[in-house]
């Protein structure tokens, strides 16, 4: 059991560390070696996961201690009905996307970097899923966030991907406050309700629930396969997983899910590019999973998470063939595709329609509101504080002889 858990969580991590060390040393490995290592590690991880599933079914769930960081913080890996399916999903998608990207990224200058980040991402996901304690989960959580932000900024010679990668990274950081605080509160024996709320806060960022939703459509900047695994499937699913793992339920979770589902389905329906459409579709379904989690329907939620991840990543991988598919669909149907959106026009009265359309097109003004009313004032406060600090420092240095400060 211990060996299997270690293999499931450790194989991708080892692949990442090994590749990282070789690339650090400046050696340029052939494309097939790099991808082979990552795919192999994912296959190993997925097989270990499958074996664990069999073992769990026979012997029941198990938690394995691997020692401890320091007293009071044990290193635990856990295999149960919740962690095993998601762990298999992560590793399986890792090797499928790995195999797919061998062709897709062939000859791209960033080929090796992509696989390095893919290995890191899969390793991080396995760590999050199999972690038996909140502390270990935090490690995986941060690494997953880092890997996905770097994958968004994959084309770093253009400003757009870097800006959007940074945006995702900042959103993750803000929501991570919730996770770290939850760990702190948990260790200091705070109220479970508070821990639950803090975990919800953390999950909302990762799963792109309102008001943290702006980064998800913008994340479609990397190569198509990375969008498929991260934003169609695994990365956004980690949010609900966190709640399921820690048994967070309740009306707050339902409320977040309902509001986001309505928002995302509305905004998604006016998007005119295929990847944004799919990003909002993902957001909608993940929001539904939030509702299921909030209502305590754990099994439904897990099944929904997995099936959605598989379906959506397939759709994103197929998105560059949209024109081909559209043409063939029209031919097979023997006429233009049926017009959609009629029932909006039936249900919504005319004066409201334009307003609602603009509301959806501007993504419910969430971004503009956050930028102008939250980020703007925050930056201004920061700037004022910096100015005051400068001013104070100058006055102090004017009155006293200079001191060699430690920092």
């Amino acid at each position, binding site marked *: 059991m211990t060996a299997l858990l270690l293999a499931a969580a450790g194989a991708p991590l080892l692949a990442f560390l090994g590749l990282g060390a070789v690339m650090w040393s400046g050696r340029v490995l052939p494309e097939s070696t790099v991808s082979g290592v990552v795919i192999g590690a994912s296959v190993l991880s997925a097989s270990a996961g499958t074996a664990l599933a069999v073992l769990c079914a026979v012997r029941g769930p198990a938690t394995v201690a691997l020692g401890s960081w320091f007293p009071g913080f044990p290193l635990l890996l856990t295999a149960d009905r919740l962690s095993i399916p998601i762990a298999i999903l992560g590793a399986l998608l890792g090797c499928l996307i790995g195999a797919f990207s061998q062709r897709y990224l*062939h000859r791209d200058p960033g080929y090796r970097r992509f696989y390095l980040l893919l290995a890191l991402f899969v390793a991080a996901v396995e760590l999050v899923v199999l972690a038996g304690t909140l502390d270990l989960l935090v490690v995986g959580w941060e690494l997953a966030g880092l890997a996905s932000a770097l994958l968004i900024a994959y084309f770093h010679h253009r400003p757009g991907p870097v800006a959007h990668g940074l945006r995702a990274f900042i959103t993750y950081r803000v929501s991570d406050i919730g996770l770290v605080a939850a760990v702190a509160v948990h260790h200091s024996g705070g109220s479970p309700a508070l821990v639950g709320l803090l975990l919800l806060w953390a999950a909302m960022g990762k799963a792109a629930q309102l008001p943290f939703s702006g980064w998800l459509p913008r994340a479609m900047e990397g190569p198509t396969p990375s969008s498929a695994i991260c934003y169609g499937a695994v990365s956004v699913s980690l949010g609900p997983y966190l709640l399921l793992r820690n048994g967070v339920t309740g009306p707050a979770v339902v409320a977040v899910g309902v509001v986001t589902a309505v928002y995302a389905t509305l905004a998604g329906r006016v998007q005119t590019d295929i990847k944004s459409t799919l990003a909002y579709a993902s957001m909608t379904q993940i929001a539904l999973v939030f509702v299921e989690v909030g209502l305590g329907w754990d099994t439904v939620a897990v099944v929904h998470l997995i099936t959605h991840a*598989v379906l959506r990543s397939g759709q994103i991988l197929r998105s560059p063939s949209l024109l*081909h598919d559209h043409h063939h669909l029209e031919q*097979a149907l023997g006429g233009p595709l049926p017009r959609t959106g009629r029932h909006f026009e039936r249900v919504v009265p005319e004066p409201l329609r334009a307003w609602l359309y603009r509301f959806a097109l501007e993504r419910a003004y969430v971004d503009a509101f956050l930028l102008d009313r939250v980020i703007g004032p925050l930056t201004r406060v920061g700037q004022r504080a910096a100015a005051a600090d400068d001013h104070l420092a100058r006055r102090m240095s004017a009155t006293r002889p200079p001191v060699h400060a430690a920092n």
Partner: protein
Amino acid sequence: MNERIAELLEEAAHLLPEQGPLQTFVHHNTLHAFEHLPFADAVVRAGALFGAEPFPSEDELHGYVVEGRIAPADLDAVVAAEVADDGVPVVPGGPTRRQFHARRLRHLVVVPRGPALRWLLAESGDLGPVWAALLAAAPRVVPAADPTPRPRDRVLAETGVDTDRLTHPVLTRLAAAFLDQGVAYWPMHNRDKGFLDAFRGLYGRAGGPPDRFLRGLGDCLRAQSDWDAERVIAWALTELDVPEPEWGDAVLATLLSLRGWAGMVRQFETRPDRAPVAAHPARLADYLAVQLTLDLFALRRVLANTTRHLVVEVTARPDVELAYEAFVLAELMGVDPTPAPAAWLSLVGGCDEVERRRLLHAAYERRHRIGVLDGLAAHQNVSTPDTPPVRFQAVFCIDEREESLRRHLEEHHPGAETFGFAGFFGVAMNYQGLHDVRPRPLCPVVVTPNHDVRERAVAPARTFVRRAHAGWTHHVAVGSRTLARGGVLSVAMGVAGLCSLVTRCLFPRHAHRWAHRLAGRHPVTRLELGYTTDEMAGIVGTVLRTTGVLAAPAPVVVLVGHGSSSMNNPHESAHDCGATGGGRGGPNARAFAAMANHPEVRSRLGLPEGTWFVGAYHNTCDDTMTYFDEDLVPERFRADLARAQDALADACVLAAHERCRRFETAAPDLSLADALAHAETHAVDLGQPRPEYGHATNAVCVVGRRSRTRGLYLDRRAFLVSYDPAADPDDALLTSLLLAVGPVCAGINLEYYFSYVDPARYGCGTKLPHNITGLLGVMDGHSSDLRTGLPWQMVEIHEPVRLLLVVEATPERLSAILAAHANLARLVGNGWIQLVAWTEGNDMHLYQDGAFQPYTPETAEFPVVERSSQVYAGHRGHLGPAHVLPGAPIPVPALDFVPGFPQEVR
């Protein structure tokens, strides 16, 4: 005022990308608007306007010098032709102008610039008297500020805030929503009244978006509700403080700042017939009015909130960079410039980076030109005139991808004779196939078809299964993106989704076959032609006379149209047949065959009873052939046809094998048996960004009899146009051929040139992050300008040389045709294509500096092999000409014994 604005728009629109929706991609010269200028001037001018590269980079070109792709003789020849020289050293004891240039081009000198140079000079201390003299003589320059035709540029320079970052996302969103052809579930509100009205309808309402820069926009739009777009443009330009004489520049720069979208709006305005689904009433004036209004609001907001800090440097300083370059070169060449430092500086300055790239590129083209022309000339001495009796003939498109198919066919089946004619075979029609939803033109873009041709099933086909399957697919695609249906569907379809994902990722070819198992066989159909006998006889007669088929028709004549079908390829239609306007040429071949088999047409043209025409379709992506109307073939031709089909099938395998050598995914020793499967995998794989390399590497066009090129290995790089001078006493056929072939091939060639030379600005960059928007085009990632041009994966193996058009005609005849046709003369005279006259007696004349100049071949010996595979086996790079003479006595040394022959140049 309105007329003036309309004029400005017209001028600016001229410079916008001319690419229409991606479904019907038509290759064209990216710099079509600059064709009135000589090529070298045009690329520099356009480069300055679009911020793009004029030639390949000096690094790349210098790499070719190092690896021998550019020979020293090429450099010397180009310098001798391009650089004026009086034979006197510029500096006493130094080189003459020509000697300087010839040496300069051989060295890549990286001169540090700006801060790096300042640091270097500060660190290196006193550099001696040469440096002092050069620095003292260096011309003084005033740092040139970037031009600021738009108020936004000025504000950016003054405040560091780019207002385009505020306005472009809004404009992109609006333009995409307005032009969308069916991606969005809920189409834009009120778009049937035009873009400006739709914008007003949305943003002129109370309770607008909370973005601070849009504050007051609603009131403004309501106040202007009855203004037309031109009035809004004039108002906005005035409010933006643009002086009236500068309006033209401001309008152009504004439109160019998001030129893909502006160009697409323009395309909808001028060519609504090309809209894939619905042509919304787009006007460039509306679009500009919206953009300027947004610009105005953004600028006001920025100026109200930031302090300006304008730093304009006006002091003239010595040009240190030039002085340092001159200093380094003086050392490198062992010259002492102190007696005449100014002369040395001006010599160095005159050979600046653009000039060096121009000369290096000319040398690069020269080497390629010599290789091809020498190969053509040498082939006349080895080709075997005694061909066996012709068993069947095949007429292909002139497309350079068919070169290998034709070569293999003739190589392995000496009884086959092939011809090249533009792939619409003279049949210009609006065609609607059995399953097509709407008709589309299948003819060159410059032709407007007058005939509608429909394909009808002979017996009503059973389409229920197919329709139900498609309906379900559509339902899942749309439903899975909605809320409730999406929830149910994603849970229900999970297992199916997993199967599809696993097979698509791991076994793409089998997955595709399985997914199409329900497609069924194409039912038996016929074309409804609707041409009069006269028209049919005219079409058939022209094609058969031009190609030379009419002189001696074989028992079976196969017409082969072509197209390409691939997955993961938004630019799929760019791989289709250019002569059918980016469509697939199968129906044209079929229609032509039907016309040529028509009894009255035959009797009118005097076609013998013993000849039958068959239409076919070649899919260049997976190298499969489809034959049309086989059931109509009379019994007596069946055996001949079967033989021809077998021969073509063999040739397809061989051509696929040859083509696969360019794919790094194919092993160098790929077996013949695996070639087709490899090609098919490339075509159907969702993860494959290189379904085929399309027109990449195209470089040559030969107009003349096939007998002069038959058996010459041309590496799938030559358009081959059949033309028999003997049948054309008055040049009428040649004139119409050149008028069609010249611009079409030049368009393909130049589009590849520009997309290769600047993939980011002329091309659409790498495919990996492409995001299809509105079923119209691709964006980079989440939201960007609409990207036009070709993706990098399509052009990465291209050689950026201008088309070498070799015509079997005397210089006098060609001069007369050029004199009579200004468009062609412009292309040739301004150097957008290289024209060569090739006479009966094997003399060649290259058109240069306004006249045909005799060309003398350098080499007469090329490798001789028995099979094409002996030339290409084991090589991935470009290959030079070779004589492929199956079974012939070998007159010159075979491949292995030619020392130093540059077989693989890259």
